[in-house]
């Protein structure tokens, strides 16, 4: 029996169980001595639980066993698959059904069973997010360890050349690949810096204007418009950077006689900064709003103008929070993929010149993993090592940012 008929039979069985369970319960409840009795449909659900949970558990165990297959002959395992498994499942369901129908009586605590099960399901659902983190860490870590068996750690962290093309044939000389990741980190840093140079002043000044100067109407119109910038998919920014901004900068360079490649770090960085503006501005907005009004009033009372108040009172008071916001924005920029994949270069270039093409960690991860992969080659494994570094760096930035923000909050609340 294959999967779907089995499922249908199970559902039918539970429906029948529900019907009989609720019917029997009606009779039982009348004889009950309790003041508060469960409602009939809860008895029905009780039977359904007993009819479905055992087979589902069995099925889960079964699937787990198939993922890590037992040593079994093919013919035998097919037999087991076709006959034994459905029989066991149906027996479990039938047994559960019979058992629960028998147990229905005036004093059965149905609600407790149902709610106990629901509680377990809720906990299981919450655990999924932890499992996700564990899955990320384990899968990255496992492949990274494999990678460091092939490539020494010192080369990865301190090497200055990155050319992950491995040899096509075993006897080929010279193209065994170089995995020095410094150029990738400097490239990422360069683009992130450019992005921050665009995003932080624009975002921060927008936030200051919005909170301190703008009228309520201006705010309600302009703020959602700025938020649009955050809602545009990154692939759109990538297209814009590659096709419009990159070419624009190149043409400017041609006009004034500087050589700017169309895949310059400048183009990718500026567009990335554009994407991050609303991120910085809405975070700083919240933080500036949180500065107590009494500080402003004190400053005005001493005769300071609005701008003097902002510069000398509000910004210093909000500084820790703003630093936290900037750190969050940096972690955003470091992890951003599509803009750099489409607008920055693929060749690793150790330079600090924003007019040249550089590559980033995320670009290389994409470059190494898109297309056919062999899972034992250093090339593929390198992507996991890069991703682990990326994961750890962004995690640290976030934790630091949250700590800074939290510490700041305690000051005023």
């Amino acid at each position: 029996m294959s999967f779907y008929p089995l499922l249908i039979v199970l559902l039918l069985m539970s429906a029948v169980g529900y019907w009989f369970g609720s019917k029997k319960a009606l009779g039982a409840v009348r004889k009950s001595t309790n003041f508060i009795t469960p409602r009939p449909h809860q008895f029905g659900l009780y039977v359904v639980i007993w009819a479905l949970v055992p087979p589902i558990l069995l099925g889960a165990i079964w699937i787990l066993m198939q993922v890590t297959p037992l040593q079994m002959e093919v013919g035998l395992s097919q037999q087991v698959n076709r006959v034994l498994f459905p029989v066991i499942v149906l027996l479990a369901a039938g047994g559960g059904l019979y058992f629960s129908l028998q147990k229905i009586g005036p004093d059965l605590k149905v609600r407790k069973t149902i709610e106990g099960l629901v509680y377990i399901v809720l906990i299981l659902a919450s655990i999924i997010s932890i499992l996700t983190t564990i899955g990320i860490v384990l899968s990255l870590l496992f492949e990274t360890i494999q990678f460091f068996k092939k490539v020494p750690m010192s080369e990865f962290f301190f090497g200055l050349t990155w050319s992950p093309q491995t040899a096509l044939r075993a006897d080929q000389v010279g193209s065994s690949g170089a995995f020095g990741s410094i150029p990738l980190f400097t490239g990422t840093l360069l683009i992130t810096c450019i992005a921050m140079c665009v995003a932080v002043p624009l975002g921060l000044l927008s936030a200051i204007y919005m909170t301190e100067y703008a009228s309520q109407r201006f705010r309600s119109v302009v703020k959602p418009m700025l938020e649009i910038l955050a809602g545009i998919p990154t692939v759109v920014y990538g297209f814009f950077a590659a096709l419009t901004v990159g070419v624009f900068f190149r043409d400017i360079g041609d006009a004034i006689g500087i050589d700017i490649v169309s895949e310059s770090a400048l183009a990718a960085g500026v567009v990335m900064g554009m994407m991050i503006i609303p991120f910085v501005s809405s975070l700083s907005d919240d933080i500036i709003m949180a500065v107590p009004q009494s500080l402003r009033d004190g400053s005005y009372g001493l005769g300071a103008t609005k701008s003097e108040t902002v510069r000398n009172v509000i910004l210093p008071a909000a500084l820790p929070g703003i630093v936290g916001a900037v750190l969050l924005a940096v972690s955003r920029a470091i992890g951003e993929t599509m803009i750099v994949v489409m607008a920055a270069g693929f060749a690793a270039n150790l330079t600090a010149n924003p007019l040249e093409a550089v590559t980033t960690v995320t670009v290389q991860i994409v470059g190494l993993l898109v297309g056919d992969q062999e899972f034992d080659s250093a090339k593929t494994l390198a992507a996991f090592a890069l991703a682990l570094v990326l994961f750890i760096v962004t995690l640290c930035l976030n934790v630091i940012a949250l700590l800074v923000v939290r510490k700041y909050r305690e000051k005023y609340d």
Partner: protein
Amino acid sequence: MTEQTQDTAGSNWNSEKFTKGLAKRKRAEVRFRRIGLLAILTALTLLAILLFSIFSKGYTAFVQTYVTLDITFSEEVIDRNGTRDPEELRLANYAKLVQNALRAKFPEVTSRRDLRALFSLVSNDAADTLRDMVADDPDLIGRTVPVSLLAGDDVDMVTKGYIDRAAVEDDRRVKDRELAWLDILEADGDISLRFNRGFFTNGDSREPEKAGIAGAMVGSLYTLVITMLIAFPIGVMTAIYLEEFAPRNRFNDLIEVNINNLAAVPSIVFGLLGLAIFLNVAHLPRSAPLVGGLTLALMTLPTIIIAARAAIRAVPDSIRHAALGLGASKQQAAFHHILPLSMPGILTGTIIGLSQALGETAPLLMIGMVAFIADIPGSINDPATVMPVQIFLWADSPERAFVEKTSGAIMVLLGFLILMNALAIFLRRKFERRW
């Protein structure tokens, strides 16, 4: 020295020095205010430039050039035996009909190279169009009728004005003789621009004029449905657990911190997770919406949980207390009262999370949704691509005509995102309750 100090201390508010200082401060104030306004205007200008550059390139993707030719459905070419056998008609060489029509229109073209250039004026999709016409109406055979055929991408680009006729011939993709033919066709009124239905009904194609986003739209739909089916229930259950049931202990604190951190993990890392777990361990089909949906579900889960928690927290305690006071169990209070009341907020958060998932590209590249797929996927296990990935693929294509298609696809994607966000705003406005 002492006099000066007294002066600035403000004994004389009408002194020249003081007036000057005040004027300076006022100017500084105005300047600061203008800089703030300038920052906002700059950001908005950047947004406007972005949208303008996409829209100005993209709106032409919704029309396509057609060439009208007098096609002779000659019996010798498509039905040599005269049997009208549908199978034979299906396999016949319809491209030949198009070529004959072009030859008849331009009898002076004879050399092989020129002929090839001439034939490329019409897309190779034309043969399929003719085949469908004959299949619908076999009586066409033997007659000559004017038929509008899909033009090749170069013709399309010329008609839409993307190719500079004034440029030097060597720098131009379309040569002088092709332009001359086009001018003749144009003068005869044989070239027309029509609504590009194929853009919304075709799958991907290597030929820009035939490429459409239907495959990507269906792929996106499947992926999003999977994402929703997984992320929504799990997200809501987690939020209910954390807000209503979780006792304050280490374990639950861990879950909370963990969710906040997951929300900030770069999306590409989720792609690697999907690659390692769903493809390499669980051996689910590569490039399938199933895997894409699972990966995106893990990615959007934190967003949904955080939004749902905020919505649940906004329900006042009095509701809980009233339910408990009437004898409801904690779970009954949560599921019968708190959850329905917080549902608008939860749905708003879910839609925003899903619209993020709809625009996400990077993790899907990792799990192989980046392959060229011409067919429209029929199930969640078929290889598929999604709209943002399609945009990425087209943006990489060298043909000039794909720039327009890419921009057009972006416009459609932005349209969907606007719809989803409008729905979220509508839900919030309509059902939001202030307690």
